[in-house]
């Protein structure tokens, strides 16, 4: 297969950059969408607070030596389809 030529790559790149910029200008994030996002942030934050409170209450039990360190490098996948 022939490599994709630079001419086509350049044209498509230029088109893509301009198209997305024009689309962004004509479709700014609206209030409803921002509210949806902020509601989900709040809901996630509340779950986190609840989980932290649970940890504080049962702290000594779960911080025992048999529990391994948390693995901060583990990046959960986005929600699975259908989840």
């Amino acid at each position, binding site marked *: 297969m022939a490599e994709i030529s630079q001419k086509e790559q350049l044209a498509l790149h230029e*088109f893509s950059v*301009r198209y997305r910029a024009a689309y962004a200008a004509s479709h700014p994030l609206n209030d409803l969408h921002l509210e949806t996002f*902020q509601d989900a942030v709040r809901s996630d934050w509340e779950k986190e607070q609840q989980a932290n409170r649970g940890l504080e209450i049962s702290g000594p039990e779960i911080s025992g030596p048999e529990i391994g360190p948390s693995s*901060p490098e583990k*990046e959960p996948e986005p929600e699975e389809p259908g989840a």
Partner: protein
Amino acid sequence: MDDLVKLVRTYRFSSGLDDRGRVGEQIIRAVASDLHLFVFTKVAPSGADDVFQETLKGIATGLRTFRGGTDGEFWAWCYRVARHKLADHFRKQAGDRLITTTPDDLQEMMDLSAQLNPVTPSVKHDLDYGMHLLTQSKPECKEFLWNHFVFGLDYAEIAEDKGMTYDNVRMKIGRCLEEVKTLVSRYG
């Protein structure tokens, strides 16, 4: 460190809801329009807004646990969330796929782009050529070309999405582009 991923890191280390909301808004404003375009070019308008809102929720819910280190990784993750939400939607409404973006839609955006940022004749030539490549490709090629060249998905991401191998996607995109190059040069 890239700017966007710095914001995501700040979000993760913010413990107060107000800070999360403020930083989260900066993040979502940076990615929303590209994700909006991605969703609205793939699903019929009746379902697109729901899918987009589910995508925003998925990002809000996952931001705290994102561990990538570059803007590129973050963008890939955002598109992965959107693709999963699209897959959920198509599982329920298989006939809701959008056929294509019309040449008129593209031209309208190019006219707006020229108002926002005037084009030189040589850039105009490139833009017209790019638009022809995307609009004159065969229907089965359009999604591949859009995903790779407009949305910036790499071969591996498209392969995962389509259930194909990396090499098959690479060859498919190469073939699609060769075919449409021939069409554009033949018919102008």
